[in-house]
């Protein structure tokens, strides 16, 4: 049998299994909005661990991570550095969010923020900013899935078809089963991609260089600048410490502010489950080490992939691996893409309905759920349209998405910890912060110390939030007491 046929069969088996798990999971869920959005707050430790880990590790980690290591060297270390730092504060914040969710029936981030700072406009603004950040993110996941499938099947399954089939399946289980399907498929996909990453990450250095230490010694001898932080920029020139540091900062601040991750706090069964998920999360983070090893193993390898994002599929094909390994690798990459993509699609629809539409139009539970399902389809279609466009500069958009998302951190912290914060203050901070991020993203030459626009925006955002809050009248004590200890 030809290699690409074997590979296609393995991919088909993997996709079939994912679909089955997704559809089965939904049968246990109640037919309510809390069921569809927050899985009836039922997730135990195993599912929470993988749903968090697998949602964070996207096609960017699986394809972009090796791409960065290969082309930018030590710059890729930033991907390893931020996750544990971003997650740790949720040991305390997570259970508080969950408690407020149970008490007031919240299922989204904006509901929590506008619970403390009542404003329909604020809710709509958060929904809008979330969607702006979501679409490029989903698009990248789809494109990643399509690229992998096209590469490993020798083009027999083109990008448009691969992305369509993979995401057709994602949309099917998200539509029918919501959060429960996302949870259980991510558990399956999470285990799968960890195993694949470690296997390939250890195997490729041994196969190509005779060992990990041997590989790095050879790279250090040939390219001494490559392995020393802060590494290289996209053009191959030395990267700046300002950019390296602020990429870590903005990613740490932004990580848990992504609505699809933040909302996971509402899906946990109890507070101990949340806390244990936070404690164990850095172990998932270490799975980026083999991912980086895969990328580094390509550095001295003869031949150049068409673009650095293709390094992983390119090497897999060039190293003459058995078809079954290629197929499994491909399924691992699809796991990474789909486990993030499903969470994103699900969250974007939930946010758009709960925090956008529902604020201005009264809808029944059944109508809300129908509208969410329609929006999953619509978001998927928009992302698919962009995923097929080879010229779309979406990596740029994704980097800027973190700039927007990180602006949700001050409102969340203010809602939970600062009594004197006011609705006007939070609103002013958010608008000024988002606008600042946008301006510096459009005009990178203005950035001081080459800083990430999200960090510059936070430096402007926080003083505005504080000043406007102090200048407006305080909230009543009884109202604040429900949110701040």
């Amino acid at each position, binding site marked *: 049998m030809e290699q690409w046929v074997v590979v296609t069969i393995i991919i088909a088996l993997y996709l079939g299994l994912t679909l089955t798990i997704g559809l089965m999971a939904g049968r246990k869920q109640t037919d309510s909005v809390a069921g569809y959005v927050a899985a009836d707050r039922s997730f135990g430790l195993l599912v929470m661990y993988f749903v968090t880990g697998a949602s964070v590790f996207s096609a960017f980690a699986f394809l972009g991570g090796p791409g960065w290591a290969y082309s930018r060297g*030590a710059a890729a*270390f930033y991907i*390893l*550095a931020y*996750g*544990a*730092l971003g997650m*740790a*504060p949720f*040991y305390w914040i997570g259970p508080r969010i969950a408690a407020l969710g149970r008490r007031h029936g919240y299922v989204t981030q904006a509901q929590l923020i506008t619970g403390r700072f009542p404003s329909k406009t604020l809710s709509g603004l958060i929904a809008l900013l979330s969607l702006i950040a979501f679409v490029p993110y989903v698009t990248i996941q789809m494109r990643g899935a399509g690229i992998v499938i096209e590469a490993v099947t020798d083009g027999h399954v083109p990008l448009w078809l691969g992305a369509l089939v993979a995401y057709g399946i994602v949309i099917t289980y998200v539509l029918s089963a919501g959060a429960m399907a996302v949870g259980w498929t991510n558990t399956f996909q999470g285990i799968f991609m960890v195993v694949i990453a470690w296997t390939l990450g250890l195997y490729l250095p041994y196969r190509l260089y005779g*060992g*990990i*230490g*041997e*590989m*790095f*010694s050879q790279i*250090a001898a040939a390219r*001494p600048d490559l*392995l*020393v*932080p*802060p590494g290289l920029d996209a053009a191959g020139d030395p990267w700046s*410490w*300002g950019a*390296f*540091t602020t990429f*870590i*900062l903005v990613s*740490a601040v932004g990580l848990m502010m992504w609505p699809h991750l933040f909302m996971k706090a509402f899906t946990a069964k109890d507070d101990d489950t949340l*806390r*244990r998920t*936070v*404690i*164990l999360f*850095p*172990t998932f*983070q*270490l799975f980026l*080490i083999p991912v*980086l090893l895969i990328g580094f193993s390509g550095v001295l390898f003869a031949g150049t992939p068409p673009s650095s994002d293709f390094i992983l599929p390119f090497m897999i094909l060039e190293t003459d691996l058995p078809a079954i390994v290629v197929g499994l690798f491909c399924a691992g990459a699809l796991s990474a893409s789909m486990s993030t993509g499903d969470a994103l699609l699900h969250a974007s629809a939930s946010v758009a309905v709960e925090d956008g539409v529902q604020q201005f139009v009264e809808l029944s539970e059944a109508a809300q759920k129908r509208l969410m399902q329609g929006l999953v389809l619509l978001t998927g279609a928009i992302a698919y349209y962009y995923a097929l466009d080879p010229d779309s500069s979406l990596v740029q958009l994704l980097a800027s998405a973190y700039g927007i998302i990180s602006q949700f951190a001050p409102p969340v912290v203010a809602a939970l910890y600062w009594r004197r914060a006011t609705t006007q203050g939070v609103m002013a901070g958010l608008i000024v912060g988002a606008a600042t991020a946008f301006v510096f993203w459009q005009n990178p030459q203005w950035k001081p110390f080459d800083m990430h626009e999200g960090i510059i925006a936070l430096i402007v955002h926080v003083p505005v939030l504080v000043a406007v809050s102090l200048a407006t009248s305080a909230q009543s004590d009884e109202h604040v007491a429900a949110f701040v200890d």
Partner: protein
Amino acid sequence: MSLRTARALTGIYLLAALVAVTWPGLIPFARVEPMILGLPFALAWIAAWVAGTVIVLYLLDRVERRYRDAASGRAG
């Protein structure tokens, strides 16, 4: 250990980790040699801080749990 001390120590560890993996804390460790388990020193250094986070959070949880149990014991 009191809850306050445990939280303060955790906070200090997290701040130290942040400084250690960014400018300027990473500068003295931004080198390839000596390699640790075959990894360039800077990569192993960052990985060690990540792994350390698990241990620190686990220890914090033990203290927090003791205080929560005591509090719920009083309430019950």
